[in-house]
Each structure stands twice: as structure tokens, then as C-alpha cells.
């Protein structure tokens, strides 16, 4: 038995040495043509979140079309490598060869954490990874940000303030992260709301509103979410009423829908409040941040340029595919290509924040405690 074990161990050591030797001798991928390079290969898309969530659905929907637009039609496989807001998936991808066959789908939270925290993330330097782009753009005014109040409590922001004075306490607003507008508005805009964390998503926040557990809706008060999960609120008498327009989107295209719900077009924050310069700056920073969709596709920064170009072109083509556009519409998302340059500008903007604005944006990103 001892001899067998020794033989097995020697065999295992040889196998490991051989594997290491092979790994060390890997060279930058070259090919006569992209067609030849990708033909018969598998491109793996790493998703840092659980199956079934927003990131996962985005990845799988895109993966369904991506293979068609990469020359050689490689197989596209989506893998969920969950943990730490996608950091684990990012670290894993950065450890793979720089051959474009391993892509990671990143949430804005990681670049925000790196930019606002002032130091690179361990094992995943988001600013030196190569961005391929993003297949989703903002769908304003349908996905704009508003503040809604329960209609049995008030009908406008002024009435909400009067109600708060009457009951002598702030109104409860559900948030699913420790940050976001639900936390920023009461802290930096003196709005009389108390953010209540612990909700797992917009769906549970809307349900809590339906149960009269919450009084104000900040995260989740937009037309698309309500239309999808509580279409009955879009008919009179509605359970909720928009009282503030946070991002300043033009809501007039929704006028007839608002009329049906018995809603007025709400004033923007700067119309309702006398904002200080700092508040104006913060409002703009928050709106800019929320306009940048959170599904950027990245590969290792040292991936050969021609592979980056092939994959960027393919992702752009996916966003122009009529079937993909239709599939995205089914889930209330708008297909559209966000370029690496646009992301670069966004990340650099984040790095430029200082002082109180930086602290406020950290809260917005849910990083106050980190």
C-alpha cells in the first residue's frame, strides 16, 4: 500500500509540474483570423450574483445572441460565481489567461468602491481591466426616480411636510441597500424620511408599501416598476402618489398614464426646495451615477487589441438585433450600447469627487460603513 501511495504522489507531482510548465509557456493568442481563433471555443461569462437576478438575466439574455456575432460562433456559457458584489467573479476572471475567453459582468458598485475608497480592490483592478461595453441604456422617463407617498397620508410634498409635523416623526422609507436615494435624501436634503434597510429588492419594498408597512417610496418609485408589479396603482384611487421628481426627467410623455392614476406631474427637487450649491452638485452626481447602467462587461486589461475589438463589435451588434431589442422590452429594459469611453469618463468623474461630496457619494453607493 505504501508503494502505491508513493507512486500516486510522484505521479501527482509530475502532473502538477506539467500543468505549471504548460501554463507558464502560454503565449498571447494569435490566429490567422478571428474566425479561426474563436471557432470551437467556449467564451465564459462570469456573473457575480445569484441565478435569476437582474445581472444574471442580463447576462443570459445577451449570451443568447452573443455567439452569433463573434466570428467562428463560439459557445457562450454563463457561470455564477457569487460573492462580495461581484469581486470574486472579477478576481477569478483576472486570473484567467488574457485570451478574451473569460468575461466578467461587473456591477457599478465595484468601480464606485475603488474610486471612492481611493485604493484598488484586492485582486481585481477595475481601472486596468478592459471594458467591452454594456448592452443596456437608461429608459427615461419610464425608469426615472421619484418620491412617492402613500396617498392616504398626503397628496403633495407640502402636505407630506404638514403630515410629518402633525405626527411628530419622520416617515418610513424602505431601502434595500444601506445607501441609494432613500438614504441620501434625508441626510443631505433634510427630507423628513427615515430609511429602513433590510428589504431585499424593489419587489419587497413595493409589497411593504402595499401592506402599509412603509409610508414613503423612494427606491422603487418609478413608472416601470409600478406598472410591472402593481398595475392597480396606476388606476384611481391609487395607493401611492408621486410628490417629487428626483432626477428631473421630462415626465410629460407619461401625462395620460398619470391622469389615469389621478396623479399630478410632480415638481423636481430644485423646484420644490431651495437647494444649496452643494446639494445641486450632489443631485447632479447622483443622477449621473444612476444614468450609468450597472452591467459593464470586462476582460483582462492585457487582452490583445484585436480580440477586444471583435468582442466590442459583437456586443454592439447584439444591441442592434431586433430580437434582442424585443426580448429586452419584454423585461422593461432598453437595448443600447454604452461605449468603453463613456464608462471611462464616468469612472474618472467618480475619482474626482472630494470632501463632503465624496462622503455623500459613498453613502449613495452604499459604502458608508466601508
Amino acid at each position, binding site marked *: 500500500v505504501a508503494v502505491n501511495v508513493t507512486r500516486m504522489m510522484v505521479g501527482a507531482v509530475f502532473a502538477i509540474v506539467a500543468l505549471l510548465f504548460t501554463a507558464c509557456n502560454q503565449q498571447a493568442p494569435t490566429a490567422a483570423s478571428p474566425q479561426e481563433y474563436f471557432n470551437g471555443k467556449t467564451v465564459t461569462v462570469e456573473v457575480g450574483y*445569484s*441565478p*435569476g*437576478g437582474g445581472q*444574471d*438575466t442580463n447576462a*443570459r*439574455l445577451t449570451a*443568447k445572441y452573443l455567439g452569433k456575432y463573434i466570428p467562428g460562433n463560439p459557445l457562450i456559457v*454563463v*457561470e*455564477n*460565481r*457569487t*460573492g*462580495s*458584489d461581484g*469581486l*470574486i467573479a472579477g*478576481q*477569478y476572471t483576472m486570473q484567467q489567461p488574457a485570451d478574451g475567453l473569460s468575461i466578467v459582468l461587473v456591477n457599478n458598485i465595484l468601480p464606485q468602491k475603488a474610486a471612492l475608497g481611493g485604493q484598488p*480592490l*484586492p*485582486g481585481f483592478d477595475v481601472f486596468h481591466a478592459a471594458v467591452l461595453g454594456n448592452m443596456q441604456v437608461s429608459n427615461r422617463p419610464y425608469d426615472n426616480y421619484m418620491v412617492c407617498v402613500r396617498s392616504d397620508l398626503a397628496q403633495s410634498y407640502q402636505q407630506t411636510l404638514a403630515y410629518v409635523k402633525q405626527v411628530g416623526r419622520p416617515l*418610513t422609507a424602505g431601502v434595500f*441597500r*444601506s*445607501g441609494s436615494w432613500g438614504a441620501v435624501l434625508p441626510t443631505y436634503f433634510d427630507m423628513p424620511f*427615515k430609511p*429602513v*434597510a*433590510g*428589504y*431585499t429588492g424593489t*419587489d*419587497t419594498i413595493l*409589497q*411593504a408599501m*402595499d*401592506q402599509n*408597512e*412603509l409610508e414613503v417610496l423612494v427606491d422603487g418609485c418609478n413608472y416601470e416598476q409600478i406598472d*410591472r*408589479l*402593481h*398595475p*392597480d396603482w396606476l388606476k384611481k384611487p391609487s395607493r401611492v402618489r408621486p410628490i417629487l421628481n428626483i432626477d428631473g426627467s421630462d415626465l410629460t410623455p407619461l401625462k395620460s398614464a398619470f391622469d389615469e392614476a389621478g396623479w399630478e406631474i410632480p415638481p423636481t427637487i430644485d423646484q420644490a426646495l431651495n437647494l444649496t450649491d452643494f446639494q445641486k452638485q450632489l443631485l447632479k452626481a447622483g443622477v449621473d451615477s444612476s444614468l450609468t447602467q450597472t452591467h459593464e462587461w470586462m476582460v483582462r486589461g492585457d487582452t490583445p487589441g484585436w480580440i477586444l475589438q471583435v468582442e466590442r463589435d459583437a456586443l454592439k451588434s447584439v444591441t442592434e438585433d431586433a430580437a434582442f431589442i424585443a*426580448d429586452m422590452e*419584454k*423585461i422593461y429594459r432598453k437595448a443600447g450600447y454604452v461605449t468603453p469611453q463613456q464608462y471611462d469618463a464616468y469612472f474618472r468623474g467618480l475619482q474626482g469627487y472630494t470632501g463632503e461630496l465624496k462622503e455623500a457619494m459613498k453613502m449613495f453607493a*452604499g*459604502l*458608508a*460603513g*466601508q
Partner: protein
Amino acid sequence: MDAFLHAISLALGEITSPTVLLAVLGGTVIGLISGALPGVATSGLVVLLSVASTMPVPVAIGLAMGMAAPVHSSDSLPAIMLGVPGTVAAQATIMDGYPMARKGQAGLALSAGYFASLIGSLAGIVILVAIMPVARLVVNTFAAPEFLVMGLMGVAVVAVVSSGAMLKGLLCGAAGLGIAAIGIDPNLGYPRFVSDGVPQLYNGLDLVTVIIGIFALPEVMGLFIENRSVARDVTAEAMWRNINAGRREGMRAVLRNKLLILRSVALGVVGGIMPGMGQSVLDWLVYAFARSTEKGASQTFGTGDVRGVIAPESANNATNAAQLIPTLALGIPVHAYQALYLSLFIILGLQPGPRLLNDHLDVVMFIAFSLALSSVVTTATLLLMSRFVARIALVRAAVLAPLVMVFLVLAAYTSKNNLFDLVLLAVAGFVGWHMKRYRWPRPPLVIGFVVGPILERYLNIALNTYTLTDMLTRPGVVLIVLSAVVIAFYASRIAGSTAAQPIATVAKEPTYA
């Protein structure tokens, strides 16, 4: 009513088409296999749903629902035969199922488990269809205070499963609550017990890996060390006789325990309807409930009592169907599986929520019929297979243990595709092994671990959104508290009458915990 009948006739028309039938059966086969392999169910479902999303709607849903039904039936196979939970919902089944297999009663345990699963599943489907029209009202009955009270009942379960070693049990429960706190604080966003050097800890410890480490790894190590089969004291001939007789006896045992099934199914359905109650917590609640209310159970549960298999198996299958109520009616996924179904429905162009009920009631009926068909096929298949499967208990450890070890390692890894979880598995296995060796009860540790996040989340929400009076006067809270009081009273009476029995009538077998 007309719309309801029309939807039923449309759904029946769909499900009787050969392609759809084939899809449901195909999904059932995949579900059977993936439920039986520890930790594979979710990744199996991911792969299947990726394929299904490119198919026509009835075929895709048939395939998905075909796979949904068997998972919580076939997950009892590794739980009973190896002491390894096939999914997190099969933890409590181990408590009595595995000791039964060790006594050579695998046939009885499997048959009772499968038949109880069928009844639980069908009951859950009937309730799913019945509740759908008033789903919003029913689901809205349960808010943060009710979840908090249910979480507190979960803590009380620690005491129930610790009787006989109360101090050790409470310490283990507290340790479970402690390790549940690792990661980012869900309320304030502060990291707890983590550092940037180990980012894997930011999302907390993986439930599947911890459960496998605490429960399964020590059993497999035990098999290695003893180098004997699972049914260690039973001859092959006796085992073979037991398997054949056990199959009929298992079904009879289920029929004899109608009230137990009814109570377990009711609890399973309530838990399924409550978005946010984990299936693990529910599994233990049902087990503790049965242990407290069944005659003599406080002495026999944990030593190989068939009722300890029937209760969790009927409940987790009822839960499986009931969890579709908030998913379909409100678009709120209760569990990872429901999140996957939600994603599939959305990609297929069906938006779960109020509109699904109004515009596609036939789809809801079709889902219910697919689940029912798959449940019947599942039980028939598993009962037929049980005579062969039960022989696993006779396989020598030298052959069985390495195979099981490979599956455990794969299960821990595929849960997040993360090498760190293999380290976690080793640590949890080490802890589990020493707990087993020095007779520290393992279930309280796991219960504390699964209840911790629920308590923390809903305590924060409840304290911030309700006054104490508001909380205590909510009908849901009153109902749950009253039920708990009645159960405690009933349990104390049962305990009193059991204590009066001669000690010789109480089974003396090695306990699982």
C-alpha cells in the same frame, strides 16, 4: 368562474399534447437526478432553464415545472441513505431517516418519505390553485412582525431539538447565530468579522457548504473509519426482506399519520407563502413541531422514527408548490429556484404579478397541472427504484465513502464556483466531526445559522416601522403566538403522558444528533 373553467380547459389541452408531456417527463427525470446529487439542484436548474428559454412557452414551462417537482422528493435519498442532505430543505429528514437506514429500515424510510412527499406536493398544488385569486390578500397578511415572530420560533426550535443536552444545545445555537453575523451588516453596511484579505467572507458563509460540512462530512468520515456499510448491523438477507416489506409499510405509516401530514402541510404552505422565510428554517420548525406534538416523539425522534421522515418530507413538498404563490401572483421570488423561474417567465414574455393572473390564468393552471403530473411520476419512479436504491446501505464504506466524498466536494464548490468554499467545507467538517465525537448537538448550530439573518433583518424592519402595540395586535402575529401557546400546552400534555410510560417501551437507539 367561467374564466377559471376556461383556463382549466386550456391548460388541460396544453398538457395533453405529446410534446409538452414529453417535456414534463424529461424535466422530471432531470429533477430526479439533480435532487439526488447533493448541491446539484440549483446548477442543474440553471442549465435546464438556459435551454428552456429558447423553447416555445408550454414546452419551456413544462420542462421547468417537471424539474421543480421531484427535487424535494429525491433529495431525501441521500439524506436517508447517507446522512447527506440533497438540498437545504432535506436537513431534518436526516434526523430520523439516516438512523433508520443504519437499522436496516431504508426501504421503510424511503417509501414513507416518497409517499409523504407526493401527498404534500398534491396538497400544496390544490392550495396554490385555490389561493391564487386571493393571493395578494393572503401574502399581505404576513409582514415584518410575523417574520420576526416566526424567526423567534426558529430560535425556540433550538431548545426543542436540544432536550437532553439543553446547555450544549443553547451554546451551539448561539454559536450558529454568531457565525451567521459574518459578512456585511445588512442594515448599516458595516463589515463584520471580515477583512479585505478574505473578500469571500463579505457575503457571509455559504449555507450549503456549512450544512454539508457540519452534517455530511462527519458521517462519511465515520464510514471511512468504521469501514463498514451504512446498515452496519444488518445482514443482506434481512435487509432485502426489510426493503420489500418496508415499501408497503412506509405507505401505510403515512396513511396512519393523517393528522401529522395535515399539520405539516399546513405549516409548509404558510411558510411557502411567506417571502423571506427560508426553507431551512421551515424544515426545522416542522420537525420540532412534530417532535413536540406527536406521542412519544420526544424519546423516539432522532433515533429512527418514521414520523420524523413523514413530517419534513410532506411539508417541504407543500412548501415547494406554495412558494409559487408569491412568485406568480406578486412577482416576489421566495427562493433561488423561484428567482430562476421568475427569470425564465420574464424571458418567455410572461411577467409574473397581477397581470399574469388576469391575462394568463391558463398558464397558472398549466403550471399547477405540470407540477401535479410530475409529482405522480416522481413518486411512482422513486417507489419502484427504492428496492434497488436501498441497497446502497449495504455497500462497503471503502467503495461508498470516496464516491460520496467526491460529490460533497463538488456540491460545496458548485454552490458558488469558489475555491474558498472548499476551505470552508474542511473547517465545517472538522467542527462537525468533533461535535459528533464529543456529543455536541449539531442541529442547533445549523438552526442558529439559518435563523440569524432572518431575525436580524426583520427585527430591524419591525422596530423601525411598527410600535410594540401595532406589532402585538396584528392578526398574523396573534395567530402565530396563539398557535405556539397551544402547541406548547399540547406538547407538555403529550410529554406528561409519555413520561408515564415504562421506560422499556421507549426505543433505545443511537441518536443522530
